[in-house]
């Protein structure tokens, strides 16, 4: 089940993680909105493409995703992103800092600022400001990288809620 850089025609991530199987009521309901499902998966594929034209490393993007899912919390996606980090070779010191919420203690200043920005956007998006963007610029992130980072965190805010909604529909069963 572990997929690395090889892009195999993977099934839709949310269908797979939430056990939404073809032939079921919920699968039919979800895929009646085919454009939404395909743009959701298309975003997933882009954000976690190892070759994303960008200097945000895959590892940084996965830490953002793991931290965002953990803060929400959304258990299924948290487990998924942790598994992806383990495929890359997880840094245990970072893992401990992230799990205890103490991202400000991270030695890697760049990751510290990236995960601080993640926390603000996930927990209290109204409190973001220009100073937060300057802190990212100070750590060497270009304009395009900041846009990708903001898009990634914003996408994760969408994905965790879509997963929560689909999970609730799944447990409600067919009407």
């Amino acid at each position, binding site marked *: 089940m572990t997929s690395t850089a090889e892009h195999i025609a993977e099934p839709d991530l949310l269908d797979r993680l939430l056990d939404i199987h073809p032939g079921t009521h*919920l699968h039919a309901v979800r895929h009646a909105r085919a454009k939404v499902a395909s743009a959701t998966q298309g975003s997933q594929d*882009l954000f976690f493409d190892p070759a994303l034209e960008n200097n945000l490393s895959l590892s940084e993007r996965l830490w953002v995703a793991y931290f965002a899912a953990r803060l929400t919390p959304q258990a299924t996606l948290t487990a998924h992103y942790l598994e992806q980090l383990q495929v890359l070779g997880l840094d245990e010191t970072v893992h401990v800092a992230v799990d205890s919420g103490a991202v400000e203690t991270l030695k890697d200043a760049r990751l510290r600022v990236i995960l601080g920005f993640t926390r603000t956007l996930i927990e209290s998006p109204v409190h973001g400001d220009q100073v937060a963007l300057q802190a990212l610029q100070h750590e060497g992130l270009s304009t395009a990288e900041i846009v990708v980072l903001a898009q990634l965190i914003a996408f994760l805010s969408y994905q965790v809620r879509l997963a929560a909604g689909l999970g609730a529909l799944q447990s409600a069963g067919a009407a």
Partner: protein
Amino acid sequence: MSELIRSNGFTNEVLGWKAWLPTVDLNSATGEQVAVLQESHPQAMTSDYYLTLAHHPDILRQRSQAFNAIMYAPGGLSRAERELASTVVSRINRCVYCASVHAQRFEQLAKRNDVISEVFADPATAGTTDRERAIVQFAIDLTLEPASLSAGHIQTLREQGLDDAQVLDLIHAIAIFAWANRLMLNLGEPVFTAP
């Protein structure tokens, strides 16, 4: 003209939005950036928001496809009810710009803004019918407490006559504004143009 609403810092008047980062310069934009802007929104070429997101055109393309399919696709939940949910999420997340845009869209579709006044005043009690109150409350719960979502939430919506396709449309409209609000709140700020 619609009746002006100003309440708790929220409004239904037309606002501008100013980017904090340098935007893509159309004179030096790539063909792909221009194509994605044209696909995304009728006014994207003159919008600071889209000209910021165009720094990564592939990601913007997927975002716009999701957004446009969620907000404009025919059938399912009425477009007015989708706009109501988007306005509630924007009110909860305190995205004044987004709340203004989607308050206006709701009014264009529904030809009234009574429920928008209520959402701006106090989302927790807003809704002119039981069905509206259920939609508003679901939007609040999925925005603030996604981990609390359960079969009971779905049952409440079904009791108000929503079928599962409409419930999914509602989930999509709420979730896509978790996305949109965070970009609008963190990459720039609203500009108040009215006197």
